[in-house]
Structure formats: structure tokens, C-alpha cells
């Protein structure tokens, strides 16, 4: 028994649990105290306020509805087909244990975040060292929009799946990688691009393109498992077909209010974000400028990573995920999508090895984290 608890991986899990809980508790306290001071109302109690904010903000209400009722073809919630099924399914399974959908959603996110932190730590520890690993986990926790990690959102689950994919890629465990990436396709649109780093690592491991020639004979049976990854996304499309009679029913819903989303070139989208920030004060501070600066900053980071020998598959995923997120027109959740892009945090943890850069990134992240957490609790348009 003593030996079991002394296992390094379990010790690490306990540390990660502690770290995540402390970070979430501090953030929650900041939000709650700020609202209490703002209202000047001693009668405001924690739980009613917290649950009203976190169960109704943004997409949370859709996930809770889906967990409870499932997808529908008609009515107000027909549009909830745009949300992927894995996270609502996880809420439903957790609800069987805890008996409340909202608490189940929070608990599912928290557990995923703890496990994701463990995987991120191990991933960076194997690639670099302990301190870089710790920075990776910390950066995720202090990202200005990390308030979503503790809410009823898919981000924590998706980060868990992405970190698992990268971790098992490092171990060359192709079948596990394929299975986790399959689940990624059932969780978010960005899940489908997990295929790219996997394909790249596989080609590299098997030396499939050595000397500019494709070596068919080096393909192994694991290639079949990798080829099955897009089936995760295929299952989502099949669900569209079964529920609403069209493989791409979600596309029509995305085009309609409240999302108005289509596809457009990234440059045009960034220009549109600027125009919106000019026309709709103060949305620029909450939605559009974080998106513009987040996109340009991420591009700079990816460029830096390419020149500084960071693992290529991380960069491939980072760019692919960023592309998928920022080619969506009328984007309002860009800052949250960046939170779900694990590569950004992996690259940042390497970038901040320099003390001055670390000080700069930590300061900017911390100040903005407080600002956006309070704004989220205030009910501002933090999407």
C-alpha cells in the first residue's frame, strides 16, 4: 500500500489535483468577491450566484440540455446539433453518480482538467525538463480566458484528449493515439485536425518519405488504426443524418442566428473583427481585440517555434487548429478556441525559458486573467 502511494506518477497526479483545485478556487474567489463588492449586497450568497452564471453563460445551457434531453429535430433546441456529443455524454454518465446535471458538468470538466494537467506535465517532462513541464501546466491555468476550464464547456475534455494524443504519440502507441483522436472528432470540430500531427509522426517514424520517395512497404497494420480516426467525425455527421435527415445539418444551423457562421479567409476575418470592434463598443475589449491579438501572437509563436526546433507535430497541430478556428466568419469565441489549442501552451512553455520573456508572459496573462474572470462573472460578452 505504501509503495502504491509512493509511485511517482500518482504523486504527480496528487500535485496536479492540488494545483488545479487551488487555481480554480482562487479564480472563483476573485470573481465572487468582485461581484459582491460591486453589488454592495451582503445577502448575495455564493452558490445561487455561481450556478446562475455558470449554467447559463454561453454554450453551457446547450450542453446541459443535451445531457438531459439529447438531440432533437425540431423546436428551439434543434440548433444544438452544432454541439458535439462526447461532452454531453460524459455529463450524463457523471450525473448517474452525482445526481445533478450542472454539478456533473462541473465535475467532469474538473476531472478532465486534472488529468490533462498530468498528461501535459509528463509530455513536457519527457521532451524537456520538470520546470518546463510545470510552466506548461501553469500557463494553461493562467491563460486570460481560463475561466472556461472550470465551467460547463468542452475545453477541459478537449485539452485532455489532445494532451493524451501528444503523450501517446511520444510513446509511439499508435492504437491508443488513434482511439483518443477518434474521440477528439466526437468532441469538437478541431478534433479532426488531430489527424495531421499523427500522420506526420507516423510518416516520420516509418520513414515513409525518405529521399523523396513514398515507401509503401513500410506501412504497418497500425496505419489502419490511424486511417480510422476520421470516423469519429464521421459518427458526428451520421448523427446529423439520423436526427435531422441531413449529413451536414449543423452547417445550416451555424449559418443562422445566433452564430451567422460561414467560412472566409483569415485576413478578411481579422479585418472584420477590427471593424466590429470599432462599431460595437465595448465588445472589442471582450471579444474582438483578444481574437486579433491572440491570432497574431499565436502566429508569431508558431514562427518562433519553427525556427527553434520545437517538435514539428505540435506546430502542425497548432497551425491547423488555428486555421480551422479563424477561417470561421463572424467568430466570437476565438479567445476560447485558443484555449483549446494545446500547442499554444506547449510552445509557450518552451518560449518562456528566458526569464525576461517569462516575466512578460506571466504578467500579461495574470492581469488579463483577473480582468476577464471578473468580466465573465459580471455577465459581459465573454464567449
Amino acid at each position, binding site marked *: 500500500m505504501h509503495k502504491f502511494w509512493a509511485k511517482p506518477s500518482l504523486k504527480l497526479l496528487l500535485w496536479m489535483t492540488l494545483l488545479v483545485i487551488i487555481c480554480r478556487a482562487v479564480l472563483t474567489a476573485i470573481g465572487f468577491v468582485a461581484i459582491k463588492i460591486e453589488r454592495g449586497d451582503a445577502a448575495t450568497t455564493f452558490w445561487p450566484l455561481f450556478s446562475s452564471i455558470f449554467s447559463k453563460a454561453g454554450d453551457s445551457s446547450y450542453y446541459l440540455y443535451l445531457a438531459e434531453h439529447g438531440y432533437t429535430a425540431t423546436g428551439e433546441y434543434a440548433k444544438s446539433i452544432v454541439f458535439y456529443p462526447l461532452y454531453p455524454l460524459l455529463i450524463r454518465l457523471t450525473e448517474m453518480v452525482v445526481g445533478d446535471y450542472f454539478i456533473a458538468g462541473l465535475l467532469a470538466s474538473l476531472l478532465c482538467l486534472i488529468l490533462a494537467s498530468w498528461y501535459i506535465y509528463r509530455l513536457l517532462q519527457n521532451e524537456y525538463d520538470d520546470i518546463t513541464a510545470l510552466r506548461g501546466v501553469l500557463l494553461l491555468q493562467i491563460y486570460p480566458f481560463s475561466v472556461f476550464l472550470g465551467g460547463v464547456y468542452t475545453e477541459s475534455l478537449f485539452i485532455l484528449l489532445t494532451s493524451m494524443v501528444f503523450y501517446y504519440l511520444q510513446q509511439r502507441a499508435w492504437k491508443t493515439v488513434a482511439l483518443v483522436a477518434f474521440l477528439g472528432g466526437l468532441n469538437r470540430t478541431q478534433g479532426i485536425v488531430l489527424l495531421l500531427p499523427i500522420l*506526420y509522426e507516423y*510518416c*516520420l517514424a516509418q*520513414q*515513409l*518519405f*525518405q*529521399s*523523396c*520517395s*513514398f515507401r509503401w512497404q513500410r506501412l504497418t497494420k497500425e496505419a489502419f488504426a490511424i486511417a480510422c480516426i476520421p470516423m469519429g467525425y464521421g459518427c458526428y455527421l451520421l448523427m446529423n443524418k439520423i436526427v435531422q435527415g441531413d449529413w451536414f445539418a449543423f452547417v445550416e444551423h451555424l449559418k443562422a442566428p445566433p452564430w451567422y457562421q460561414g467560412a472566409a*479567409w*483569415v*485576413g*478578411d*476575418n*481579422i*479585418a472584420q473583427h*477590427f*471593424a466590429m470592434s470599432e462599431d460595437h463598443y465595448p465588445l472589442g475589449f471582450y471579444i474582438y481585440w483578444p481574437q*486579433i491579438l491572440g*491570432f*497574431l501572437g499565436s*502566429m*508569431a509563436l*508558431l*514562427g518562433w517555434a*519553427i*525556427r527553434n526546433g520545437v517538435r*514539428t507535430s505540435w*506546430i*502542425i497541430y497548432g*497551425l491547423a487548429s488555428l*486555421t480551422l478556428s479563424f477561417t470561421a466568419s463572424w467568430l466570437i469565441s476565438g479567445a476560447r478556441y485558443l484555449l483549446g489549442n494545446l500547442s499554444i501552451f506547449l510552445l509557450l512553455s518552451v518560449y518562456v525559458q528566458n526569464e525576461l520573456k517569462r516575466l512578460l508572459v506571466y504578467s500579461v496573462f495574470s492581469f488579463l486573467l483577473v480582468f476577464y474572470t471578473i468580466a465573465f462573472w459580471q455577465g459581459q460578452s465573454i464567449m
Partner: protein
Amino acid sequence: MQQFLQISASIAFISVALMLGKKCWIELTENTFVVFNEMVKKQCIEIALYVATILTIAWIMHQAKYGLVNIVDFHAIWWRDEFALPYEAKSSWPRLYPLLIQIFGQVIKDAQFGVSVSLSFTAWLGASYFFYLLTHDSIGTQPVQNHISSWLVFPFTLQLWLPGNTSLLACLIFASLWYWRQQQLGPFVFCVAMALWTDIRALALIVPIAGSLLLKHKVMDLALWTLGLMVFSMLPYVHVQWRDILLAGWPLLLMTKLTKQPMFRELILLINLLATGGVLYAQILG
């Protein structure tokens, strides 16, 4: 500010994508790209300088005859009128080149001109790459790089990065020959099919393929392709232009070998530059 952000975001995105593409290629193919990369860098600088010179000369010629016109307007009008319109994809079964223009045009708005120029330019770099692969074993890296310079100043080279399918066809032909030499049937069939879709003269590939099967002599493929191309160009209904000389492999190889000699190199350079001046004069003022 809005336009600045739009351009900055696009440039940042494209730059990172290109840098990443290069990194992936180097890692996957184990450094084959490095030599080519050096070549491309050299080529791009030369092209930029050369194109700038040519454009300025063309503009000055135009000014001398027709009076003052803004340099940007002049090139936009001249290039568009001269080259772009015949390649619009109007037929019910378009060829590959105009079809590619249409596809890329969905992303980049100036479909007829901007896309066709960038597509031609990219295809030309691709053609240079495969030509490099085909010849560097027999004549070494430096002569091939010299060849690129010589090719650059050929009187009709300017047309290779203007709208036109010559670059694309050259790229696909050299790629086909390379994959045939490597005995990679899949990529070979794909490149041949694409080349045939681009231009019927790709049928001339029969000659080097049959030749290599009969003679078992791989090094003859460029010469046999040239022979086949000449035969097909003489057929009725086949429209031949001066720039099509650049499709022929063997003269390119010969020119490359000649440019090993500094004296020949200078001579060829001078002749080419004089001829380019003549071509420009004819196209602008004639």
C-alpha cells in the same frame, strides 16, 4: 488600420504555413530540400531583380511612345490584356491550368491575374526542382544553378510567370520523367495524366518512355523527350510559341553544359538580354 490588419494577418499566416511546410519536408525527406532551398533562394532574388528591371524598361518604352502613365496601372492593363483573357475557363471541359486558376480564385479574389501569376511562378519553381533532380547526378549542383540563371534571361522566360500553362506543363513533364526514372509507377501515372490534361503535347512522353524500355538507357530520357516534343509540335493544330522551347529538356541541358564555360555564359547572357529587349519592344510597341 483595418487594411493593415488584413494584410498582416494574411502575410503572417502564409509565412508560417510556408516555413512549416519547408520544415516538414526537410524532416520527412531527410534534407533533400536543403540544396533545393538554397537554389530557390538564389533564384527568387535573381527573379525579383530581373523582373524589376524588365518591368522598368517596359514602362520606360511605353512612356517614350505614349506619354506618362502610372507604372502600376500600366502593368495591370498591359499584362491583363496581353495574357490573362485567353486563359479564362470558359469551355465546358476546361483544361487543368484554367481550372486550377478557378479553384484558387475562390480563395484569392483577383482570380484571373494574381492567381495565374502565382500559379505559373510556383509551377516554374517546381519545374526547376525536377529538372535539378533529373540532371544534378550527371552534371553536378553548380551547373544546374547556372542553368537556372541562364534560363532566367531567355527572351521568353518572362512569359513563364505570366498567365500561361507552359510552366505547369514543364513541371509535370519533368516530374513524370523523374518518377519514371525512379520506377515509381503511381506518381508517374498521376503526373502523366495531369500533363495530358494540361496540354496534348504531353503525348510526346511516349518517346522517352518507349526509348527507355527499348534502349535500357535512362540518361537518354531528356533528349528523347525533346525529340518527341519536336515531332508533336510539327503536327497540324498544335499551337507552338517561342516560350515552348523552355519545355524541351535537352536544349536546356546543353545550355547548362555550355554555361560551365565562363565565356559562353557571358555570351549567352548578352544574346539573351538583347533578344529580351527585342521581344519587349515588339510586345509593347508593336
